[in-house]
């Protein structure tokens, strides 16, 4: 049986970051990936965050296959054919030190895997890990789907993505629950560069993102997004599986309904669909996190539920957690102690970082939204109507108009309801 110091299960941003940091620290590292090469099985909306990527590969923007640096982030509330939106733009975000880029994962992950190889890691492709190997209670490697496919390792890092097969078998994670996981579908739609830049008011090369709430998910808990790539747009929508099943929507119908909205339709007009993709997003947050370590094992990225849905952050939590796990693994191997006690250091470090601090801050939001499903339905309507009344010049005196706005809001939600929503939100987000 071939033996490594560290085996990483899964070649996505979390796993490859773990492999890079472990290999750089001088331990024999291997990544096992089930696709033809890292990237071919991987999907996300498409935002890669600079700080967490830079920590893994310094000045990555000079070489990495990135789509566009994001200079504008727009949030929109959709209600019927209406949209209320708000955006922030800083043109300086198209220069180092940047904030975020759009990427297409097939290209980007392949490049990141090459960086792992440069750092000294071995990447085994087209191979599915089936279980951990044990000697007594100790994890000593992995069993793969190949003939004579056992591989030895002192530490196994589980970066298998949202489908946490191995983490479950290892007794670290529980089965995914439909109220904790979203299903998202996305299309990549090609559009000439100039059209993208005109439609989004961008200088050549710059990028923008739009997140859409409200009727973009038919009032269900979830979001839709439109991201600019070099010569394509990524458009997608995701909603929690439980409400989606209850409302009897299909993910594809949700996306088609979004694309038919006038605002969205105009942005996509004339584009040619290149690919239709699907992926799950772990949205369970702090309360749904698995146990993050045991003797010889650490759990990173989506497998660890490291997604901050409210800020649509995930790739950065993945990379930062992977990097920490790789470092902790290398350190443990150097001192010859991969016990649970030593790997507890990984848990300490992620808890001390933005990763778990942010998940902890928003730990009550999932429950809050679940218990108040009206929020994503009523408030976009109220907001849209209020803005329409505010902007309509029909000779109604403004004082009277303000009264009408309040009356309209109260009609959709009682004063008591409004106050309890506000108080609930404050408690969930504080």
């Amino acid at each position, binding site marked *: 049986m071939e033996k490594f110091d560290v085996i990483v299960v899964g070649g996505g941003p979390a796993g490859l970051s773990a492999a890079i940091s472990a290999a750089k620290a001088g331990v024999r590292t291997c990544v096992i990936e*089930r*696709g*033809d090469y890292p*990237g*071919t*099985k*991987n*999907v*996300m909306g498409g935002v890669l965050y600079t700080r967490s990527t830079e920590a893994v590969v310094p000045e990555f923007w000079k070489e990495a296959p990135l789509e566009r640096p994001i200079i504008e982030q727009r949030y929109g509330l959709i209600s019927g054919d209406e949209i209320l939106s708000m955006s922030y733009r800083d043109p300086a975000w198209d220069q180092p030190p940047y904030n975020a880029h759009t990427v*297409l*994962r*097939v*290209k*980007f*992950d392949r490049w990141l895997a090459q960086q792992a190889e440069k750092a000294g890691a071995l990447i085994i*492709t*087209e*191979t*599915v890990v089936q279980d951990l190997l044990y000697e007594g209670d100790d994890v000593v490697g992995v069993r*793969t*789907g*190949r003939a004579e496919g056992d591989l030895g390792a002192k530490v196994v890092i589980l970066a298998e993505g*949202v*489908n946490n*097969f191995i983490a479950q078998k290892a007794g670290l994670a529980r*089965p*995914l*629950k*439909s109220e904790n*996981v979203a*299903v998202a*579908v996305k*299309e*990549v739609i090609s559009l000439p560069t100039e059209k993208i830049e005109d439609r989004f008011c961008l200088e050549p090369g710059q990028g923008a993102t739009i997140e859409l709430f409200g009727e973009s998910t038919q009032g269900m808990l979830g979001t839709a997004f439109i991201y600019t790539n070099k010569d*394509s747009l990524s458009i997608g929508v995701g909603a929690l*599986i439980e409400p*989606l*099943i209850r409302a*009897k*929507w*299909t*993910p*594809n119908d949700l996306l088609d309904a979004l694309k038919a909205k006038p605002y969205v339709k105009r942005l996509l007009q004339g584009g040619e*669909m*290149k*690919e*239709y*993709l*699907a*992926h*799950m997003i772990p949205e369970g947050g702090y309360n749904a996190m698995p146990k993050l370590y045991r003797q010889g094992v650490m759990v990173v990225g989506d497998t660890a539920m490291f997604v901050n849905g409210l800020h649509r952050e995930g790739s950065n939590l993945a990379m930062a957690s992977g990097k920490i796990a790789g470092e902790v693994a290398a350190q443990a191997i150097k001192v010859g102690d991969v016990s649970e006690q030593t790997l507890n250091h990984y848990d300490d470090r992620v808890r001390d970082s933005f990763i778990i601090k942010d998940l902890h801050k928003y730990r009550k939001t999932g429950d809050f939204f679940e218990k108040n499903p009206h929020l994503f339905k009523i408030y976009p309507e109220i907001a849209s109507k209020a803005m329409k009344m505010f902007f309509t010049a029909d000779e109604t005196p403004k004082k009277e108009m303000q009264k009408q706005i309040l009356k309209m809001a109260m009609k959709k939600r009682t004063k008591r309801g409004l106050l309890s929503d506000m108080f609930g939100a404050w408690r969930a987000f504080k």
Partner: protein
Amino acid sequence: MKLDDKLYLVRFNTDKQSHIKILDQEACLQCEDMACTRICPAHVYHWDEEVKRISVGYEGCLECGTCRVGCPDNIEWDYPRGGFGVSWKNG
């Protein structure tokens, strides 16, 4: 564009053996909701009225795993064997 046409854009390296199993077809007969026929983004699960069973078009599976969460008791979904299944062009 229809879902079938969208799926036509996806690249697959199809395995001869299925990676999806319905554990108990009898249970499907009792299932009123049949969430699997809606929740799968690729419409892999289809109620076949003629033979009164769920047919599984595993060849078109996008490997998201949603079915496994939507019907945890009766769908056994695993990854396809290494090198098989969906192979994204963009991601």
